[in-house]
């Protein structure tokens, strides 16, 4: 196991190098020269050159790339070009609001989707199954933007059940007052695709011989479904959940903007709007690293839930 983990970690290096090169060249290619924006409305070439010098974008590409690599190794990405705020401070202050929304959302989404998937798979072909699938298909066809606009208008403004927007100082106030509607929207958007996918995984298992054997042995339906079927269907479910976890680090862009949640997703959009390369590259690198780590964790979990899986 240890050897496997070390080997996987070692294999991450070339992947990370690819990410670094991609981010670096993409930004330099499409990002635009930030000096022209930072220089203000009236500026001359001398002032623009001065800004480029201070930002280091006047250096040859290989020098800039080397600085980028050093930043990744040391974990010090410097400060935002726009606000001078340290990148580490940006990440540590913006991540908690994003996680306050996304962790409960991910947990609830998984629990509800798995529960419903088992239920509708159990009554496969019935009116209930077909009705749920139609609702899911309709739900899938609607953009998240529509959910946000409608839910915000109806539940926050018209009915007054939630604040239209905002964020407070207390964790509990944020979780139960400000994050509730965003979580509800996230569930409305996320459950439909998860449910359809998990139902398929469960259906793949439900017709297997071991299920028939379990029933023949007289196991209860609950035990058959929740223990045997779910355990065997859990590998693709784990894959799906783990693949979504890196998304926690980049937040939910639209939800954070509409509900004025000071999260990392909103910060990413702001950084793109401001051509704030240090912020963009730091977050991109962190997300890439997190994706690889979560992939490794997913592989380890396969082994935990199914001992037949061989880690090679």
């Amino acid at each position: 196991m240890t050897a496997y983990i070390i080997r996987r970690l070692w294999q991450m290096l070339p992947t990370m190098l690819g990410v670094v090169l991609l981010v670096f060249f993409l930004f330099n290619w499409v990002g635009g020269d930030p000096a022209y924006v930072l220089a203000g409305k009236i500026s001359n070439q001398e002032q623009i050159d001065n800004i480029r010098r201070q930002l280091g974008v006047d250096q040859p590409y290989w020098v800039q790339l080397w600085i980028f690599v050093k930043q990744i190794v040391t974990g010090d990405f410097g400060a935002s070009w726009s606000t001078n705020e340290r990148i580490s401070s940006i990440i540590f202050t913006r991540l908690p609001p994003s996680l306050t929304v996304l962790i409960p959302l991910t947990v609830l989404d998984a629990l509800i989707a798995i529960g419903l998937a088992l239920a509708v798979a159990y009554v496969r072909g019935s009116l209930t199954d077909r009705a749920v699938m139609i609702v899911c298909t309709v739900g899938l066809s609607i953009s998240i933007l529509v959910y946000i606009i409608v839910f915000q208008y109806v539940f926050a403004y018209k009915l007054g059940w939630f604040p239209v927007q905002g964020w407070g100082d207390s964790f509990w106030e944020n979780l139960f007052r400000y994050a509730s509607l965003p979580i509800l929207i996230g569930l409305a958007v996320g459950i439909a695709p998860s449910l359809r996918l998990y139902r398929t995984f469960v259906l793949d298992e439900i017709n297997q011989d071991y299920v028939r054997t379990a029933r023949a042995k007289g196991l209860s339906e609950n035990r058959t479904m929740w223990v045997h079927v779910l355990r065997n269907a859990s590998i693709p479910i784990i894959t799906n959940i783990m693949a979504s976890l890196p998304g926690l680090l980049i937040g939910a862009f639209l939800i954070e903007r509409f509900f004025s949640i000071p999260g990392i997703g909103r910060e990413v959009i702001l950084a793109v709007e401001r051509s704030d390369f240090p912020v963009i590259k730091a977050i991109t690198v962190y997300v890439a690293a997190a994706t690889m780590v979560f992939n490794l964790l997913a592989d380890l979990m396969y082994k935990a839930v199914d001992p037949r899986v061989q880690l090679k």
Partner: protein
Amino acid sequence: MLAVATPAIAAPDMNKVVREVFPAAETGFDPAAVHDLYSGTLIQGIFETLYTYDYLARPSKVVPLAADGMPQITDNGRTWTVKLKKGIRFADDPVFGGKPRELTADDYVYSIKRLIDPRIRSPWAFLVEGKFVGLDEVAEQARKSGRFDYDRKVPGIEAVDRHTIRFRLKETDYNLPYILAHEPTSAVAREVIEKYGESDGRALANPVGTGPYRLAKWVRSSKILLEANPHYRGFTWNFASSDPADAALVREMKGKAMPQVGRVEISIIEEDQARLLAFQGDEVDLMNMEGPLAPKVLDGGTLKPEMKAKGVKLSRIVDPELSYTYWNMTDPVVGGLAKEKVALRRAMAMSYNVADEIRVIRNGQAIEARYPIPPGVVGHDPGWKGGIAYDPAGANALLDRFGYKRGADGWRTLPDGKPLVVRLSSRPDTLGRQQDELWKKSLDAIGVRMDVHKDKFPELIKAEKQCKLQMRVASWIADYPDGDNFMQLLYGPNTNQSNNACARIPEFDKLYARTQKMPPGPERDKLYQEMTRVIEAYAPWRLMISRYRNMLVQPRVLGYKRHPILHAHWQYLDVAPQGPNK
């Protein structure tokens, strides 16, 4: 009428809260370093300039703020002496060691020098560059040595004594009071900057000023809480307005000790719907109604009945801004002063229907710009009858006359028979796309083929400054409310800086140089009219629109009137005692 400074009349009521919403995030609080509107607004509330604008006077009128009276002008407008009010104190901060810190002339000298310190890379360097005797030399020295010597005496910006500043200008410039009323020249304390400044000399956090408010809480890009500065000297609300519509406002505010509002809560809400719902749900008190939202709340220029029924107030002005399309005057196809080039530009300008833009793109929330100086700015001529009118038939006739013949495919060619294709550069956003479509429709109607060139904003600005774009829609909002701020946009020597048309029109340049030595007044206005005729004759621009700014105000907020230049208005407001908006 001036706001009369009085010693600590009454403490602001900390229960009186005004909640405002910004549609974009702030970047920081260093007057020399930031250049976005919202940071500038906050800076106006926390720091003080020597001068400011009368809250109700229109057109905008400069009045003293930290200065004790208007400047004394000598030496034919080249020496300006400003006295400072005595006893103004900075808000408390640990950096002052628990002692009161008085605002002095040296603070302004230091703060203005910061604008040209290369290390700070201030976007406002243009306000002082080339203006003050000896300042450029210190900046040049700093570029060589890497360190700006703030202790070196600069004859052009001098603290004569603790409360007197003398400015010596290289050339006569009657715009100095506007510059001294502009928030980048706000006073900061040197010890604060040295304590909190980053390695680049900018102190974007930890603002400590002498203004009516101080920063109490800051959740970056999300929430800002300002609290009344207990050391602020206060003033009596004693403004007068020539507008009869302001009578009720004056009545409800006159004689009050200001500031009344103890706390200001600012939320950043980027999305239009969220902003509007937050206002309608009484989560915010003041909100700027951006163009796309206007039809939901406004019937033309007035509030919809349901908003009126709630008691919501609308404060509506035309922003001191100008939107125009420019043609690059150095471009071989559309540029130059030759008659056929002028005819081509005029024809293109005549093909564009500004009324369509106002109706379709701006939702009716703009007026047609006929004069290059917009309303509310000194030098604007409301009775100007000129301008290039929408006249596609006339445009076609003009092109025919100057040899731009239509080919078999319907598109016109250049007089020498070569293909005629113009290229409009724009941003890849909704507004850019809408403007592309309107220009395409306009030029199609006169047989001029148009291509669209899309690029990112920084790249467009870069190409523009290098005179590499052919035509683009640009806009300019006043840094200060004087016509000079707009007329300089076509001054030849400003090419590669603010003159995005790269125009060098000798008649215009000569007239502009003369206006620079004149104070505002009828004589200068006459020259502005002549310059406007030159612009119309050579058509480097198609003047388009100036937008309305619609501020929605909850009924509990008293005394609000949108000022065209001042953005921080909280110190002029009160909140009705009944509290809720009923």
